[in-house]
């Protein structure tokens, strides 16, 4: 008899499937760095030669840096506001008895399933009716609507994960609601806050549809990239930019996973 249990036994078919799946997922992405170092305008084989000139051009590309800065600003504000709203909403949903709680939560979560194009058009019509000029502010507003449900979905398990009597103990020991939130609730949900912030920032950073409808004269990075694709000679620059974003994204994801594991590690120890 085999020493390993049924569930642990190696399965060749599944292994092949897993490898094929990973290749399918990442090979297209790997073309990005490959062609970003290729000395040719057109993305086609055979490769012409190694160059770093696309990266050099990128560093002198003022509009690109302006778009990048726009996206970082929009992303940071979106992530901060969405996470703040998410914290209060998650606390309310998990802690208080209130009438009509489920419908309210449903409405907040609705943007998860409503196509972005519908929300984008709706907001565009609303803004133009109200006479609000399109700008990075309107893009940020759109992104917050998209991000709050993600923030809530990240934070609700955090709130549900800790004993309500811990907050009661704080009140019992003389802290009012604000003091309890600051000294107990916030530190305990902190890993969730970081996760929510990173998630919202990432969503906002690569969001296209809302930004397409709601941005004015200042483009976000996805809009900028979209505009570049119309000019063949700019495509390698986009590839170089894509490569840099890819590297940073990987770094952020690993960091987020690490933070998450730190939190989970603590939790299992607490459960003992």
């Amino acid at each position, binding site marked *: 008899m085999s020493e390993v249990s049924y569930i642990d036994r190696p399965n060749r078919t599944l292994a092949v499937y897993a490898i094929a799946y990973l290749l399918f997922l990442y090979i297209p992405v790997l073309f990005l760095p490959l062609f970003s170092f290729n000395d040719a305008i057109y993305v086609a084989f055979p490769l012409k030669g190694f160059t770093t000139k696309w990266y050099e051009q990128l560093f002198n590309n003022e509009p690109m840096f302006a778009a990048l800065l726009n996206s970082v600003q929009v992303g940071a504000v979106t992530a901060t506001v969405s996470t703040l709203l998410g914290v209060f909403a998650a606390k309310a949903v998990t802690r208080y008895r209130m009438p009509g709680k489920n419908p309210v939560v449903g409405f907040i979560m609705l943007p998860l399933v409503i196509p972005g194009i519908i929300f984008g058009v709706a907001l565009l019509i609303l803004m133009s009716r109200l006479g609000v000029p399109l700008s990075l502010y309107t893009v940020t507003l759109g992104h917050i609507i998209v991000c709050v449900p993600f923030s809530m979905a990240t934070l609700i398990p955090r709130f549900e994960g*800790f*004993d309500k*009597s*811990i907050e*009661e*103990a*704080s*009140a*019992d*020991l*003389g*802290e*009012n609601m604000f*003091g309890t939130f600051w*000294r*107990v609730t916030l*530190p*305990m949900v902190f890993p969730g806050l970081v996760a929510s912030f990173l998630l919202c920032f990432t969503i906002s950073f690569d969001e296209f549809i809302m930004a397409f409808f709601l941005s004015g004269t200042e483009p976000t990075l996805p809009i900028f990239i979209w505009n570049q694709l119309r000019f063949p000679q700019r495509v390698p620059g986009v590839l170089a930019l894509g490569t840099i974003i890819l590297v940073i994204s990987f770094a952020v994801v690993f960091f987020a996973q690490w933070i998450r594991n730190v939190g989970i590690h*603590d939790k299992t*120890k*607490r459960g*003992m």
Partner: protein
Amino acid sequence: MSSSDPMISIRSVAKSFGPVRAVEAVSMEIAEGEFFSLLGPSGCGKTTLLRMLAGFETPTSGEIFIDDQPMSSVPPHQRPVNMVFQSYAIFPHLNVRANIAYGLRKQKLPKQQQNAMVDEMLELIKLPGYGDRRSHELSGGERQRVALARALIKRPKVLLLDEPLGALDKQLREQMQLELRALQRSVGITFVFVTHDQEEALTMSDRIAVMSKGRCLQIDTPNRLYEAPSNREVAAFIGTINFFDASIKSVNGETANVDAGVLGEVKAPVGDGTFASGMKVLLAIRPEKLSIESKKPKRSAHAVEGVLDAAAYLGERSHYYVRVDGIERPIAVSAQNAHRMLEGIDDQPRPVWLSWSSDSAVILDAK
């Protein structure tokens, strides 16, 4: 107990959660320095009552006074009470020292004095040197002590304890019962202790309120609750007891003669109730107040013959169940195993005699 005003006065307090009536018009007074227990099965309203004292729940009607102050408009963080939670609720992101000092922030004490107070508390709970540990590095018993220290450092007028020993194993629990009782005597703070464990309540309390289905059945000292329960529910909830249908024949001051069917005419003390001739009552006798013998006893006031139905050996004592013709349920008897019983217990069906003295039975209202 002081003769002055009570520390806690609960006046017709009721609490409903929607259609569920958790507590129904409960009134009680708890004296300063008293160790007072709320005892009852789960769902009897004892924890809800405790949470109303802490301020986490608001009474639907009635008023709670602590140290003569009405509490209904006082939020939890301003009440002169502190609580030890069932789950201990130790702050997991803080170490033991910071947990214990948590409630001192508002007092704005100099750091040195605060540290001295925490050290004193660590001594009191016998965990010196544990200051830097985190909650997950503590055992259940240690967490319980930290929760206690964190509440006591505030020098509350009343300490509320919500089944604080429920999560501990039996030996540790018995040790903590004694320690908690000793601690309460040394600090002199009024303790209100919620438990479903009657043995625990009897061991620790000055007085106990027995609760059931949101109502308070009896408030009394442990020995009076056991020996002189005022009604059937309390008698049945605290310990084991045998009930016999009976009717009053005559009442002579403190004692009464009742007609108890096959048990014959029995003399027994009357409890708190008022009884008149002809009333249907219950005669109640604790299992350990009955003696079991194979021959008819000569000197006992009351005796009845039956057949041994079952027996169980429990180490320091044995339980016997005896069937008596005309009585529906077998009568439970508990006897000390005063002699070694190496051959085990003789549970063969055989005729036996049960006897008891006239002051060991109690007469209760049949309702």
